[in-house]
């Protein structure tokens, strides 16, 4: 199948700063693709280039087999964009936000009205149709932004940090909606610095840091390749973590000391905990959990994702 997005050596420089440093990736139709990385990694800049609102400084980029340099309006006509910061017209009603936006794509008013009603239902906002957008909660505004991005029936839906700033319940409602889109075959491109979000939404992702791709694969593949099946988190108190880690050397192959806890990587977490206790160490708390993309990122960059 022809990829809907192809980037080769894609580069973006702002003066001396190289925000995106020659990255390569492809996104297939119907795929849910993620860019995972800390703030400032170059994810949003990449999204802006793919979204044909920022010109590249180097490399090749094709979206729907068109070049964003020459066919910006054509590409944008096929995208749905959910920006990092909501830019809804807060003075307009919920429904009017959709109607106005649909017109930017040259859709007839009748089509805008029909789609607006369907999308409000999809976004679970039917009861808020006539409410001023300013009066919506953060989660509702986010869902409205997603509904707005779908008004042109896009081939690709691009979501930049879709759930940043939302409470856990609102995040889950949003994920559910996005999951439905994914099931319906919409191509999703998501940036996030949340591991759980990437694991929930992405079939495949690239880990980005300092404008470069550090690794690529499905969440499960990345975890298998760069981490162990389980992780033991032990807390000894911030002053004693480093000492304890020294004494635990050899208990398992890899140990990471973070400011507030020590992570021990192993396929069998429980047996590691037993070995630590056998050394006479007494952690204040201990937790055995499955490995996550956070561990992958730590392994790849030596840093935690959210600093």
């Amino acid at each position, binding site marked *: 199948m*022809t990829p*809907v997005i192809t980037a080769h050596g894609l580069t973006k420089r*702002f003066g001396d700063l190289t925000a995106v440093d020659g990255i390569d990736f492809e996104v297939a*139709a119907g795929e849910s693709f993620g860019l995972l990385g800390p703030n400032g990694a170059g994810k949003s800049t990449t999204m*802006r280039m793919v*979204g044909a*609102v*920022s*010109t590249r400084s180097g490399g090749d980029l094709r979206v*729907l*087999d*068109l*070049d964003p340099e020459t*066919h*910006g*309006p*054509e*590409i*944008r*006509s*096929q*995208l749905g*964009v959910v*920006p990092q*910061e909501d*830019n*809804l*017209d*807060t*003075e*307009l009603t919920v429904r*009017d936000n959709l109607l*106005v*936006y649909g*017109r*930017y*794509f*040259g859709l007839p008013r009748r089509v805008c009205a029909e789609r607006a009603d369907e999308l409000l239902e999809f976004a679970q906002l039917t009861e808020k149709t006539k409410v001023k957008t300013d009066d919506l909660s953060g989660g509702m505004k986010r869902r409205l932004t997603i509904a*707005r991005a779908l008004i*042109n029936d896009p*081939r690709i839906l691009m979501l930049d940090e879709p759930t940043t700033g939302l409470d856990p319940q609102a995040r889950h409602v949003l994920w559910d909606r996005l999951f439905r889109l994914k099931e319906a075959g919409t191509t999703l491109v998501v940036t996030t610095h949340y591991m759980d979000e990437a694991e929930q939404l992405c079939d495949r992702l690239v880990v980005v840091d300092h404008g470069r791709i550090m690794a690529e694969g499905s969440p499960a593949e990345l975890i298998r390749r760069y981490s162990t099946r389980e992780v033991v988190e032990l807390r000894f108190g911030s002053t004693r973590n480093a000492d304890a880690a020294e004494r635990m050397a050899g208990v398992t192959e890899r140990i990471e000391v973070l400011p507030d806890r020590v992570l021990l990587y192993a396929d069998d977490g429980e047996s590691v905990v037993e070995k630590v206790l056998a050394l006479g160490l007494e952690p204040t708390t201990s937790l055995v959990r499955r490995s996550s993309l956070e561990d992958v990122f730590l392994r790849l960059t030596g840093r935690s994702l959210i600093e």
Partner: protein
Amino acid sequence: MTTTTSTPTAAAQRALDAAVLPRRFGWWYVAEAQLRSMKAYGWTIVASGVGQPLLYLLGIGLGLAAFLDVSVAEGPDGPVDYVTFVAPALLMTAAVGVAMDEFTYAVMSGFKWRRLYYAPNASPVSPPQLATGVVVACVGRMLFTAVAYYALMVAFGAVGDPVTGLLIPLVGVLAGLAFGLPVMAYSASIKDDRGQFALVQRFVFTPMFLFSGTFYPLDTVPVALQWIGWVSPVWHASEIGRALSYGSAPGAWPVGLHLAVLLLMAGVGGVLAGRVFTRRLRG
């Protein structure tokens, strides 16, 4: 329109088709949206559009003019009523006032506070189309204000020839653009509000209103201050307005010259605004 490859793929073809209308009418879609959001303050637009001329024309026509025994201005056929002399300039100032409203805080808000411009920016609409749409909507508001002003001028008997005078509201719109488009370019270039617009209001708009030959002919002003009129869209537009109402005063600049100055200011401002919008939205 073709892609670089010989036959576009189905997805590319769909994109090519979908962008035909927005490439042509994107500016109008933006104007539609802008006009829709003006509804939110529609009453302010109507009240100031009708109330302001009513107050000025009553104040000057029935108040100030009653105390003036001597005529301050000449027309081609001799002295002109004070209110007839002042009225075109008041209309021009009102149109420029609308531009001051729509092209300062509103533009900065679109980029910064409410970020409204970033929504159409992700659609097929281009930055120059976006700027054009904002301007077209403002032209609509200026036209409403100028036509309302003109109707009241006629009602107050403040127009020499009401038929040629019908063009005065259009000159008002041009005055608004000559002032407004350069201001729009400036507003779009500002990243942080440090009171710049208050300075524009105090040191550009107000002196322009007071020293543009609004209340007395520009050539009666000390020579050292006359340059304010020469660079002021209000003066150039007022002179055209007066020519349309009762004819040019002896020794006045040709109307074509005034028109050329206004068109030049609006043209340069428009090009600059389009460029600044593009630079700001396409980093």
